[in-house]
């Protein structure tokens, strides 16, 4: 029983972290039907940037206490905003409406951004430790709940709630949902849909960069391969969850996280394969994903 509780807890944490990475991808995919192959490289850049600041500030002024973690997170978010804007403005915007070219051009961006990471921070693994206030664990019965995982779950749940609330209630959210359905009609109502696209792209990239940053202490390292590896998982989540459905992405992410946790315990090499199989099964039965609109 403890074993399963532990695995579920771990799976939940991993899943919620994956959700942060996938949420932006899902929004972008849903609204602009752009499958952003650069997403992984972008959050890797965010992860490196945030980690770099986090480590730098931590070493430079230990009086800051745990603040360096949040400064690192802010740095990741900041670079996410900048990168999101640049990528949308100069590449993705040019090829809206053409799936093939979108996939190609974001692949190009993936190459460039991925290599830039190596230029700035080198091709080697960088070790990252968890901030002091989040190290350690508390026990509930025989189940050890590590603070960092608890933090991830709470943080991501807050983000998820904010996102859902925003989509449901705010004007921007309604516009985004309407834009996912019919971007032409939105324009006829006097809304510059391009601007909304840019905002969503920036926002999605920012979320991913924050997620990427949080991934570092979670795994104890950042490395140049994480972009592609995690992007694949994010893709799986989006495909399972359905086009543009934030709630769908969250559920799919938890599903993937749980299968990761269980596979990691019972048969580590098979974890990715199992997720692939889930994705393939979902797509074959319901090509729009579990929660995607049937269009």
């Amino acid at each position: 029983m403890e074993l399963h509780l532990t695995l579920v807890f771990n799976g939940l944490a991993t899943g919620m972290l994956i959700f942060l990475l996938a949420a932006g991808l899902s929004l972008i995919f849903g609204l602009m039907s752009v499958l952003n192959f650069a997403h992984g490289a972008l959050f890797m850049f965010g992860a490196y940037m945030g980690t770099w600041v986090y480590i730098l500030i931590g070493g430079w002024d230990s009086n800051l206490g745990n603040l360096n973690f949040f400064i690192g997170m802010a740095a990741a978010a900041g670079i996410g905003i900048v990168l999101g804007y640049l990528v949308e403005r100069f590449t993705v915007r040019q090829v809206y409406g053409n799936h093939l070219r979108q996939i190609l051009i974001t692949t190009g961006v993936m190459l460039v951004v991925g290599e830039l990471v190596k230029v700035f921070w080198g091709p080697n693994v960088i070790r990252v430790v968890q901030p002091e206030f989040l190290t350690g664990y508390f026990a509930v019965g025989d189940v050890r709940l590590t603070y960092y995982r608890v933090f991830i779950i709470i943080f991501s749940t807050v983000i998820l709630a904010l996102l859902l609330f925003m989509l449901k209630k705010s004007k921007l959210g309604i516009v985004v949902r309407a834009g996912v359905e019919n971007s032409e009609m939105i324009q006829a109502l006097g809304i510059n849909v391009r601007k909304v696209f840019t905002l969503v792209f920036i926002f999605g990239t920012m979320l991913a960069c924050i997620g990427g940053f949080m991934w570092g202490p979670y795994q104890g390292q950042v490395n140049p391969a994480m972009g592609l590896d995690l992007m694949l998982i994010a893709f799986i989540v989006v495909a399972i969850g359905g086009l543009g459905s934030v709630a769908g992405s969250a559920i799919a992410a938890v599903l993937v996280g749980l299968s990761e946790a269980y596979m990691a315990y019972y048969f580590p090499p098979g974890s990715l394969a199992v997720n692939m199989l889930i994705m393939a099964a979902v797509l074959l039965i319901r090509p729009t994903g579990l929660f995607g609109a049937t269009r």
Partner: protein
Amino acid sequence: MLKIKDLHTHIEQFHILQGVNLEVPEGSVTVVLGRNGAGKTTTIRSVMGFYPNVKGDILFQDQSILQQPPYTIAKHGIGYVPEDQDIFAGLTVEENMRVAMRKEDDKTRERQEWLLDLFPDLKLAWKRKGGHLSGGQKQMLSIARALVNDTPLLLVDEPSKGLAPIMVEKVMEAMNVIRETTTILLVEQNFIMASQLGDYFYMIDDGQTVFEGEMKLLQEDEGLRKKYLGIA
């Protein structure tokens, strides 16, 4: 209020409009007639700025709106009711209205109240998803949505299309009220509706305006009607 001068629209390689000229005087209901595929919808959509390759000129309140993006054109005060209503199916009626509001001030809310009085059906369906509305309700929502902002000119594309007769009647009644405050450019194949609402008509055929005149003229001249509408 709206002037279209020698409008040529290309969609991809197709030269769809090949010289459309028309004028919508302020306070009027001007009807665009013509058979299927003649270019009526393309004309309206060209005004809304949906096509990049448009030549000629389109003047709204004496200013050219040619080559402007659709959202700017909408902001000038042109409301658009598309052929297929294009209601956001996943949004409730309330949200559909809200998405259209460019300002959420008292004036806009007042206008919304007025529209809901005009279309009581919408009030009843207020929390329902757009996708679950009936065809008539969709049409009403589409019209209300276009008018919730300050809209001096309304472009309406075939409001009677696919509607049950009783709904056509309701829509027509509403249009009769709307015309008192808003200038209307109406595309319509339903001749009864067109002739009851319209003051003036333009006939489009093969992408060109081929005939224009007072609506009365058309009501009296059956030959003309047959010729361009293809009714016998």
